[in-house]
């Protein structure tokens, strides 16, 4: 019985996919065009729609700044206790987006309790809001196998599906950007003490990177987890 219960709980996150058809096609698979940055601004769907749209527009402008350039500095601390248990001891991350760009707003949709605004740095040459891929209920391959190519670096961010869903997507994107920064430059500092039988110590994992061309590529969600695939230009540098 116990085994059956644990197998069921282990597999439910993949099996029970949410109603992905509710989302606009461009939210699940973002448009791509050379020389154009795209971003989605999110807001909770308030009773007054104007308020929601205004907030989503402001968020879209902020996300466009991040897409053009963002500097991430941060550190995570972990402690390893005798017996092998690793304990999280906190983290600090600072993210500084680049300069504001003049946005071009392409579409606004309300779904899943959110208002979503698609913005770009300029009007793309080829774009149709209705054209997109059919949402797949099985997890896409990038959820487990992170893509790789010579022109960019990729990372996947995840977050629990919160009641206010826009927070989940924002958190998943934030986690993905942090992982992008770590994948470009990670400073690992470790101090371990112990005997042959037991050891304990601390690990500090830090990063400091300026990312450019940070573009959300795809989104997918299961019943309980939101996943985001993002990409950045491979020519990231250390911040000044």
């Amino acid at each position, binding site marked *: 019985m116990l*085994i059956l219960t644990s197998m069921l*709980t282990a597999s439910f996150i993949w099996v029970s996919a949410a109603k992905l058809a509710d989302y606009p096609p461009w939210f699940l698979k973002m448009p791509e065009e050379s020389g154009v940055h795209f971003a989605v601004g999110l807001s909770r769907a308030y009773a007054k729609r104007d308020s929601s749209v205004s907030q989503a527009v402001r968020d879209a402008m902020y996300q466009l700044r991040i897409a053009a350039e963002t500097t991430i500095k941060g550190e995570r601390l972990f402690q390893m206790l005798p017996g092998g248990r*690793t304990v*999280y001891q906190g983290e600090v991350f600072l993210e500084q987006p680049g300069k504001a760009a003049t946005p071009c707003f392409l579409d606004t949709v309300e779904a899943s309790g959110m208002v979503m605004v698609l913005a770009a740095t300029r009007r793309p040459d080829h774009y149709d809001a209705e054209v997109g891929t059919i949402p797949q209920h099985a997890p896409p391959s990038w959820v487990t196998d992170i893509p790789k190519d*010579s022109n960019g670096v990729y990372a996947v961010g*995840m977050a629990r599906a919160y009641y206010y869903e826009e927070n989940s997507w924002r958190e998943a994107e934030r986690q993905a950007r942090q992982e992008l920064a770590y994948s*470009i430059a990670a400073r*690992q500092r470790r101090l371990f003490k112990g005997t042959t039988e037991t050891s304990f110590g601390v690990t500090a994992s830090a990063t400091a990177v300026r990312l450019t061309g940070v573009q959300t590529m795809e989104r997918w969600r299961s019943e309980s987890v939101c996943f985001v695939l993002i990409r950045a230009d491979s020519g990231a540098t250390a911040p000044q």
Partner: protein
Amino acid sequence: MNRSVVAAVLFALAITGCGGGSKIVDLTPVPNSEILKRAPNWFTDVPQDPNYLFAAATATSSDMQLAINKAQTEGRNQLAQQMEVKFNGLQKRFQEEVGVGDGSEYLDQFTLAYKSVVSTVLHGSRISKQDLQQERQIWRSYVLMEMPIGEANQQLMAKIKANQNLYTRFRATEAFDELDDEIDRFEQWKKNQGN
């Protein structure tokens, strides 16, 4: 006196009874055979590639994000350790060839060069594969980290070349041939990949 003792015993029993519903969650459960069966293949059979270092790591937590972050950090720790082992071996061979007398200055310079590559920052340590599973009340994450060792080799060679005296001495050693061969293989691999 007797009444107060009886009252104290009843109070203690009442408190103990109220706590009966709470359960302690084991955040670091020992993996049983079922958990091991569900582990991804790449976790138990880590890939091999001369141009990459690989590290497979797993972590558990009641918080999903922490389970992921712990596994990522553990994976990068393993990569850093592999880098140190690799370059420590190179340093040892260089030490054996230059000796400890007149060559100690070169050895210090070499150590400085490789430490600046190994001990500071891991470049290009990316998650190649990942998996996330829920086991009752805890999350278990698996990550496979990879890092191109060829780029670290190139960085080390560049640091050594920056010191002309050290480079002249290093060129005359077998340790140089070994590092140079690895860099050549990496360059060839990059050409084959179309980079």
